[in-house]
């Protein structure tokens, strides 16, 4: 019984292993012959194999070799070693072609034997002439998005016989070619042809491709990047910027844009008045907020803002500093484009003043704004129907507390409607006009005489 077992064990082990070719996705059972095909002289070609354990017990791999000129198994785990149930051992057979001959080898895995074939053929030589560097991969370097780089290759025949090059092909996004040659072509001994491959990145990212000359494959690489924008100049249509204005902003570049870019022009505001947080009326009108999209095309020196040559913004009704910055996303900007304009503190601006007479009151209605947020002191001077000042003359009142309370909750900056009511018990019809002087920290302003209706 012991002898029987001795002979049965290797047979069982042989039956439970199988040899497959592996292409990275599919295992294909290997037959008696595997042909690695044509390989350019001086080049090498790899084939992947898997020894799979299909049995219910571990298998020991005792034999694994490729015996034949030109064939090697790099990085081979030296037998014996085990492959567990359902598992596999993967290895590479490499054929390195030298002289233009046909080659064969015996691939042996335990009891499985397969003939490997390969043909070495006289091949063209490919070398980089100019425009890129390196060998594996061949590097086109960093190229600005929208620009193009060209790499020149020399294709020569170092053999003693004329050869035909059937395939010259370039693949990979961003790479194009070959330019200057067209396969198939014939090369006489010693003849040299040049051709080029172009690299035109469409994104700011890393690109990979291949140049295939017959069976030789050269990896290509290149990086696209967005070159920095020349420093933008943000200009406003006037230097006399004040409150309650609508001004236009333009964006120009110091030099033509080296690449197309887009992003946002952002407005920020720093109020001058203590305790004032912001002024919601300061905004770009086209967007209703503080961001305006910009676009610049390659070669342009003028950016479009929201599709137009300029963007209108409101200066609001608060003294302070309005700043504009540019964010071009992934595109860098040469220099700081931030532009700041100051809105000076001014006396109260009166948009309209009116006065009405009611049965026992006089109402004075003022609409305006106070960009200092310090208004409150008012002086009223009443005139009779003959235009004479009614005694006792100017009447001073201080509404500072009212204004401070109002400004804390105003949704429209410092704009205000003030209604001041004067109780009258006499003949109010003889009060014909009124003048109002409003004072803030920047000075005083006086209305014209307002007719009381």
């Amino acid at each position: 019984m012991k002898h029987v077992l001795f002979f049965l064990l290797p047979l069982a082990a042989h039956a439970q292993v199988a040899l497959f070719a592996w292409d990275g996705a599919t295992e294909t059972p290997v037959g008696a012959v595997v042909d690695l095909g044509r390989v350019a002289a001086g080049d090498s070609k790899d084939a992947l194999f898997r020894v799979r354990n299909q049995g219910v017990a571990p298998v020991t791999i005792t034999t694994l070799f490729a015996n034949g000129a030109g064939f090697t198994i790099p990085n081979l785990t030296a037998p014996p070693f085990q492959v567990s149930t359902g598992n596999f051992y993967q290895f590479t057979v490499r054929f390195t072609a030298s002289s233009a001959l046909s080659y064969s080898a015996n691939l042996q895995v335990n009891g499985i034997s397969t003939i490997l074939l390969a043909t070495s053929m006289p091949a063209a030589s490919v070398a980089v002439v100019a425009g890129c560097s390196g060998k594996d991969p061949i590097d086109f370097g960093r190229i600005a998005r929208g620009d193009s780089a060209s790499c020149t290759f020399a294709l020569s025949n170092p053999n003693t016989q004329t050869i035909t090059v059937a395939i010259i092909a370039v693949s990979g996004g961003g790479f194009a070619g070959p330019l200057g040659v067209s396969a198939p072509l014939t090369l006489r001994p010693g003849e040299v042809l040049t051709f080029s491959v172009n690299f035109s990145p469409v994104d700011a990212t890393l690109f990979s491709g291949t140049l295939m000359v017959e069976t030789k494959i050269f990896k290509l690489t290149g990086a696209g990047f967005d070159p920095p924008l020349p420093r933008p100049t943000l200009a406003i249509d006037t230097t006399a910027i004040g409150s309650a204005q609508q001004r236009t902003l333009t964006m120009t570049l110091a030099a033509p844009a080296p690449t197309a870019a887009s992003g946002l022009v952002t407005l920020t505001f720093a109020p001058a008045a203590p305790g004032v947080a912001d002024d919601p009326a300061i905004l770009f009108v086209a967007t209703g907020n503080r961001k305006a999209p910009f676009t610049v095309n390659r070669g342009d020196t003028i950016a479009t803002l929201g599709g137009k040559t300029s963007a209108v913004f409101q200066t609001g009704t608060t003294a302070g500093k309005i700043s504009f910055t540019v964010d071009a996303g992934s595109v860098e900007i040469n220099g700081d484009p931030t532009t700041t304009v100051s809105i000076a503190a001014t006396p109260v601006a009166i948009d309209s003043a009116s006065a009405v007479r009611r049965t026992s009151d006089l109402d004075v209605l003022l609409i305006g704004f106070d960009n200092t947020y310090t208004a409150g002191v008012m002086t009223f001077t009443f005139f009779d129907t003959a235009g004479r000042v009614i005694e006792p003359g100017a009447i001073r009142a201080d509404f500072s507390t009212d204004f401070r309370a109002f400004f804390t909750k105003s949704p429209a900056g410092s704009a205000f409607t003030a209604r001041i009511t004067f109780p009258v018990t006499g003949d109010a019809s003889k009060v014909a006009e009124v003048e109002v002087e409003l004072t803030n920290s920047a000075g005083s302003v006086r209305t014209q005489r307002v007719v009381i209706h």
Partner: protein
Amino acid sequence: MRIALLLLLIAASSFAQSGLDTPRLGMMLDRDGALRPVQGVAASVTLGDPVLRDAVSFYCGRERCLVKTAQAIVDGDRSAEAPLGNAVFGDSLVYFFETKQLARWNEGKIEPVLLASPIEGDVLSLRASGEDAVDFAVRRDAGISILRVRISDGQVELLDAFPPATGPVMLLRDGILLATPEELILRRGDGFEKRFGVPGAERMFALGENLVQIVTPGGIFALRVERGRELLFQLPETAQ
């Protein structure tokens, strides 16, 4: 003396009755059909939250804002069923495009105003002219005509004609605002004329007292038409 004495008394009481508020210029119709308050002062405005979301046209005057929705007229918290479609206002008068009917808004009700004969052409704007007449801006083949129609007997008087005007028109209390493809033209009865470089006007609304909203593909504008204080400025678009 008596007045002076009164004013002295007022001074002593320190004007206890005063009020501060945010200026409201009127309303504007945004591109989504929402009616929004316009706050602030000219050229420095903010928009409030929508007060109505399905407006097709509106009119804001000194005393009220009337809004046409698809099927009603809304005046604050009052509304009344109205003919379908768009309408144009002239203070309390309203003209319904679909039915070519004139009516008056009166205390929350729509009261028909019968005309002896229908208005020929497309009515673009209207305004009351005294108690018995209505002025219409009408688009006809020959351009814009301004007609005065007497309600009592239907007599029609041609007041003016503007052949170059191709866009919307608004009859103002003291003149007319016209639109050509390239600009806005403000004309008054005394011959005053001022032009504003706003191309492509598509619609006009009475935004508020002496303020007109002009809608163009390139922006929404407001024109202050108050005599001597004419001012064009842009209204903020609704923030996205």
